[in-house]
């Protein structure tokens, strides 16, 4: 059983909704990245999504684009990201880590080399936004090394394809709550509830819902019908400009604590 599977099994046993914060690796501060990751766990994160910065993040809105640009400007690359995961693992052997990003940095690093280094660092899964199931043959070395490929499902996904995604899902299935980019505002929980209920009934893995969740209220609205919620842009926005480990940890606590309480109270 993988670290991701164990974590979702534990959440289910405790009847809790998982909290999955997303942060862009290297933002707001490369020096304090490991401290930021521990702060996320201290504030209630069940799994961490670590964004690998990419110059051309086609599926992301302005908040995550700018965070990527800031990290790249500081020279952050895949090797740094893996280094932070390895450093994080020295104190935390339980919290699953999923690297989220785009294919080109992994392709250029080399799939086999990446797979080996990622597993060694303690990465559990990858979510490569621009690598749909149809193109994922290139990821075989990652699967062989034991990394789980987190798949996306979207409101536009056709029923036959949804069946295929549900059948192929591992770790968790990430349901994109609306057709758009990360960080957009509108969220229609009624529609999402119906779709997610259907997917949960069929998927081989738990279902996390992301895109558009920004606070305790929107997290709570989703918590009723999802196995986990993903919060990205709103958190990245809150962290922007923070300096020093204490300030970063303070902002993480202030932002995530009410969300954690809302999820646990639902």
């Amino acid at each position, binding site marked *: 059983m993988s670290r991701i599977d164990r974590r979702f099994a534990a959440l289910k046993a405790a009847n809790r909704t998982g909290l999955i914060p997303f942060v862009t690796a290297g933002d707001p501060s490369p020096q304090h990245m490991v401290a930021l990751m521990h702060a996320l766990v201290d504030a209630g994160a069940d799994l961490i999504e670590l964004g690998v910065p990419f110059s051309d993040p086609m599926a992301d809105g302005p908040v995550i684009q700018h965070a990527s640009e800031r990290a790249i400007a500081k020279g952050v690359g895949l090797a740094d990201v893996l280094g932070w995961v390895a450093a994080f693992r020295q104190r935390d052997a339980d919290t699953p880590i999923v690297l989220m990003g785009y294919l080109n940095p992994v392709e*250029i690093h080399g799939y086999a080399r990446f797979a080996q280094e990622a597993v060694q660092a303690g990465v559990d899964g990858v979510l490569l936004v621009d690598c*749909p199931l*149809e193109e994922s043959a290139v990821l075989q070395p990652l699967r062989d090394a034991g990394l789980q490929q987190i798949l996306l499902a979207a409101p536009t996904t056709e029923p036959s394809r949804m069946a295929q995604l549900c059948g192929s899902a591992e770790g968790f299935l990430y349901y994109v709550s609306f057709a758009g980019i990360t960080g957009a505002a509108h969220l229609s929980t009624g529609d999402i509830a119906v779709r997610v209920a259907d997917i949960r009934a069929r998927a081989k893995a738990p279902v996390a819902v992301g895109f558009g969740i920004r606070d305790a209220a929107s997290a709570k609205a989703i918590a009723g019908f999802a196995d986990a919620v993903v919060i990205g842009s709103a958190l990245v926005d809150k962290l922007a400009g923070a300096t020093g480990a204490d300030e970063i940890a303070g902002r993480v606590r202030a932002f995530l604590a009410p969300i954690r309480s809302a999820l646990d109270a639902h």
Partner: protein
Amino acid sequence: MSKIVDYNAYPDAHGRFGNYGGSYVAETLMAPLAELTEAYLRLREDPAFIAELDRDLKHYVGRPSPIYHAERLSKHVGGARILFKREDLNHTGAHKINNTVGQALVARNMGKTRIIAETGAGQHGVASATVAARLGLKCVVYMGAVDIERQKINVYRMKLLGAEVVPVTSGSKTLKDALNEAMRDWVTNVADTFYIIGTVAGPHPYPLMVRDFNAIVGREARAQMLEEYGRLPDVLTACVGGGSNAIGLFHAFLNDAGVRIVGAEAAGDGIATGHHAASLAAGRPGVLHGNRTYVLCDDNGQITETHSVSAGLDYPGVGPEHAFLKDAGRADYVGVTDNEALEAFHLLARTEGILAALESSHAVAQAIKLAREYPQDGIVLCNLSGRGDKDVHTIAAREGVEV
């Protein structure tokens, strides 16, 4: 190469040209792309669609465009005959209209009411705004803030045609970022919006569809060569940014093994300086904008900023079919510097009375080099993909002239 390849057999059903192409997009776009692929594959066989496209190309675009023997230029160079396929004579002044007329008809057939496009030099934006106006469709064009500054005339042309031009300020503020932003718009507004990609890049079916709509250039040229010269050219050349005018000229000749093919990429200040946009000559295979192709990126996989005097070639990727042709050895891709392109621009202006676009001037420079390699009865056929009116201010500024 001993293996005989049928170049018409590409791409396959997944949009792959050998190792290149494909559909590297977020899940949200998989269904819209499947819908577009289904619609386009149906329409490309539909006699009514083909007849309407042919009528538009003839009466609206002004096709066929002639091939023109540049006698004074050829004489000046002192080598083979240089012939130009005159895409600069099309309505709106470049080959880009061939594609937008086609995609606009696909959009209308699919019931879409809103057109979006990305543009670098502004030619594709103008061509998109043009067809949107003609069909009464709303049009939004994404354009990098840097390109807006260096292509002011085209920005104003788009506005005159009723389009909204949205400045893109992320990343390098050029064509690649405009493409990202258009993709974000599309993913948000897929229900009513049709995305007209202007080059042979992007996810399947775009490299196929854009190539098909531009392949009229090579089909005409091939027939014109046989009719007017009784033979095929020795060598073809065209400029390559994303590669739409080049694949347009090349495609009909790919199975003619005796015709040599050379693409001219933007070498900017020179490939050795790192300030260039020569993805095929100096890049490596990677994934960008929905397809696997040659890209310019660093060792972290970050796409690097490119440089070219011509906004239309200032792109860090290239259409996947070109990547395939390079690896197959069917076409060669070489760099032409800013200075070489400008020199060719002036030479063409003074010997033939033609102001070529800065993009096309790269092809002209390459045609001049190739002409020197062949005897006087040889033929170099060059795609003169667009006219240079839009570049007059850029050239004047570069040469310290106030207009």
